[in-house]
């Protein structure tokens, strides 16, 4: 009984310490984002490459997934609204649920699966290969050169892709509202405008930025925890990914709480 209590206490303390460390580390990276010195030519190149790999390369696939998955989702939601006689809530469901909640979530999940996993592995491999040490030996700041461009890329990519996804969903919403409710574009537009709340859009964009920050920061942090053995790579990658998903859930819950309050 005693040992169970001790174990539990130790676990809780470890979790809290790790959480506090992550927040402190995030603060450090966040401050660097606003320092002019951070933006060297080398850092800008990394940033450019990161945006290219995370957003531009994925764009055709992302748009296709958004169109297929988003349209199906919007079709199902509209159908349900019609069946349950909740047509009056059509605009609010479209803006409040699909645009401000589902679209950022869909984007963040796609980017996490594609880029966060890659970043985590890349960092772990660099650590194992002693490339991080190389950077340090040449007095290249790891935070400025490796972390900040990836984190900025995360923020830019999630905000832009999520907005694109929302726009795609709204466009497919036009089609489905016509097919399911026989609604004209003018009526659809009016309902949408009535249901739109700028504060909701701002919260959604802010949430995307937070998502982008953490889904890149956490994998980097865990990747850098690798030892000099190759066997440590899968361990830190799986830990990193689990933590990224936990972070996504926490951010989602917090954003839902802001809506409730």
């Amino acid at each position, binding site marked *: 009984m005693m040992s169970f209590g001790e174990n539990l206490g130790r676990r809780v303390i470890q979790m809290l310490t790790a959480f506090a460390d992550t927040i402190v580390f995030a603060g450090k990276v966040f401050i660097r984002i606003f320092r002019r010195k951070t933006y*060297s030519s080398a850092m800008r190149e990394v940033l450019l490459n990161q945006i290219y790999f995370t957003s531009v390369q994925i764009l055709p696939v992302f748009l296709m997934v958004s169109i297929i998955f988003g349209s199906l989702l919007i079709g199902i939601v509209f159908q349900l609204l019609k069946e349950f006689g909740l047509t009056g809530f059509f605009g609010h469901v479209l803006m409040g649920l699909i645009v401000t909640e589902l679209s950022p979530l869909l984007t963040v999940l796609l980017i996490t699966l594609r880029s966060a996993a890659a970043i985590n592995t890349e960092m772990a491999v660099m650590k194992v290969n002693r490339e991080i*040490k190389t950077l340090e030996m040449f007095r290249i700041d790891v935070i400025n050169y490796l972390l900040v461009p990836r984190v900025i890329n995360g923020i830019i990519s999630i905000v832009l892709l999520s907005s694109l996804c929302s726009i795609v969903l709204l466009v497919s919403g036009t089609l489905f509202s016509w097919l399911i409710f026989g609604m004209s574009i003018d009526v659809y537009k009016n309902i949408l405008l009535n249901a739109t709340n700028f504060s909701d859009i701002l919260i959604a964009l802010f949430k995307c930025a937070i998502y982008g920050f953490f889904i890149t920061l956490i994998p980097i942090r865990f990747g850098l925890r690798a030892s000099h053995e190759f066997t440590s790579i899968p361990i830190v990658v799986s830990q990193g990914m689990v933590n990224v998903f936990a972070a996504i859930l926490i951010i989602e819950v917090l954003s839902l709480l802001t809506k409730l309050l």
Partner: protein
Amino acid sequence: MFDSEQALNQSLHQFLHDYPLQVAPVSVDVPLISNQDIYMNIALIKQYHEDMPKRQAQRLAVEYLERVDLGQIAYKRNPALNPEERFCGMLLRAAMVKDAMILIDQPFKIIPHLKDIQFVTTALKKIDDLYLSCHIYDYQWMKEKYGEL
């Protein structure tokens, strides 16, 4: 020349401590970044420390590679290089440090099949305008390979 690993490491650390801003290591422990082409590895130092524009730094890197007759490796990555090419890549990267004091740690560990130091000195001569000084650290028992140097 050092008698033991401990003495060598101690001396290396001392050197790093004495010239923290100029030291430019060439060592198996300081590898090339594997997910970047060789010219990018070399250009990185100028881009980061001197904020040299990307194109200019990369042009410079390719130019230096051509100077050591290795223009063809510019767009290759670390795993694709042979030990001589890898050594030259590391050397050029070190030479990119401003007022570089190149520190070559056990060159025969980087190019194990070398019979003598000739290859290293030739490479150093080709780029002697790019660095301030060069220091080679190795064990006493490798003295033979260095000849009269």
